[in-house]
């Protein structure tokens, strides 16, 4: 009986020792006590995925790999993805702009005038503001009224600074806020197909819409 007890106690102690060893290994391979001094750098353990699209056939170059959410001129949450399935005529600008932005909108309207009614129904004209501070949904709504934009197909978006930067970089739009509060920025109208792929860019101002229209019509 005593022999058995001794064996049992030795076994117990060995088991305990290895448990202790295992726990020690666990603790010290990730010890906060031994980390380098630095500001806390939280490892974000969730995967950073560029895309969480439900559509299996998204082209690799589609803008819909972005999953940003914006506010439209009616202050409604508008996911970028909600613009899918329609060709887009899109420009990034800001409403307080007195130089070239009014001309960009006029150039977009030239394209609008060049489409047939059934083509118009399927096209969306999108203005994305680069000045979210001043271009609130209310301001965008008032701008749409001022420029007589048909809101059944014109969508004006206000969003977060980082989402604006990312979209601009997807489209190759440059912009810089000056100390005056005004922006220097590219003057571009983008034609984007129903799948979100950028198909044409119209640079400059007071440009004839022909080339853009030709391409746009080919998308229907």
């Amino acid at each position, binding site marked *: 009986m005593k022999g058995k007890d001794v064996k049992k106690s030795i076994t117990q102690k060995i088991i305990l*020792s290895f448990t202790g060893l295992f726990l*020690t290994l666990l603790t010290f391979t990730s010890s906060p006590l031994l980390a380098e001094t630095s500001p806390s750098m939280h*490892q974000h353990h969730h995967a950073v995925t560029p895309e969480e699209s439900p559509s299996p056939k998204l082209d690799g170059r589609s803008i819909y790999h972005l999953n940003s959410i914006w506010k439209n001129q009616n202050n409604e949450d508008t996911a970028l993805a909600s613009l899918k399935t329609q060709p887009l005529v899109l420009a990034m600008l800001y409403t307080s702009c007195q130089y070239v*932005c009014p001309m960009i909108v006029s150039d977009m309207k030239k394209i609008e005038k060049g489409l047939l009614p059934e083509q118009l129904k399927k096209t969306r004209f999108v203005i994305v503001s680069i000045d979210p501070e001043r271009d609130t949904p209310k301001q965008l709504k008032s701008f749409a009224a001022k420029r007589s934009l048909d809101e059944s197909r014109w969508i004006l978006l206000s969003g977060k600074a980082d989402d604006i930067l990312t979209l601009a970089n997807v489209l190759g739009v440059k912009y810089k806020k000056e100390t*005056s509060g005004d922006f220097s920025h590219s003057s571009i109208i983008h034609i984007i197909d129903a799948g979100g792929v950028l198909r044409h860019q119209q640079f400059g101002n007071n440009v004839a819409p022909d080339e853009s229209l030709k391409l746009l019509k080919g998308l229907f």
Partner: protein
Amino acid sequence: MNPCQRLPQYLGWIICWGLFCALLATRMAEAREKPEKIVKIPSGFFVPLYRPSEADKKNRPEPQKIPVKSFWLDSHPVTNADYLAFVKKNPAWQRSQVPRLFAEENYLKHWQSDTRLGKQAPLESPVVNISWFAAKAYCEAQGKKLPSVNQWEYVAQADELSPDAASDQKFINRILEWYSKPNPEILPQVSSNFKNLYGVHDMHGLIWEWILDFNTALVTGESRADTALERDLYCGAGSIGASNFHDYAAFMRYGFRSSLKADYVVGHLGFRCAK
């Protein structure tokens, strides 16, 4: 009970303790060897290369100094080893998986495969052939950000002894000499060359680096005299005119940035993160 009989009891504890001590020793040795991976940059003032506007020039004939708040900057560029760890955790950013929108086809072309570095990509060399989107995602995964142009240039103007060597022609010439050297096919390790006053390595002499707001560089010409925005292409609220016509190295950096698109990858363009 004699000691021999007690041995099995003690064996477990001896192994435990021995391993514990070994682990402790190696971790402490590791911590001592690694240089600070992130460095605190003190706040200060900085003269941006491009002056705000014509109107501003009239009101303030002297180049305007803008304040830079204190921040943390990686002490060296992100390495191949660092980036490999990131793509292993985030397979959507692996070479064969990344949407073409976020990186052009030469993305990580110096790596052997999706998750193998190979001979062209030493562990401790800076990761290059990386797009802005990828660099940004990496920094965000670390809870950091890409540095802004002002943050980056503010640190870049420091040499070994002074926080502001931007007007030191000798320093500018050193940098220009580095820029004029052809890029080696296999990049050397980080932190093996130039270290500035703040303890930050490789701001010059190794690679060019992505910054968060590279798309604010609106220079359209390569010549340093050609600093005007093309009026047809840009709505110019007035960003023209350099504050320092002698810092040609800075001109080259701004010119380079203005030639970039966010999905581009370049063999000598990498990045580091800030917080």
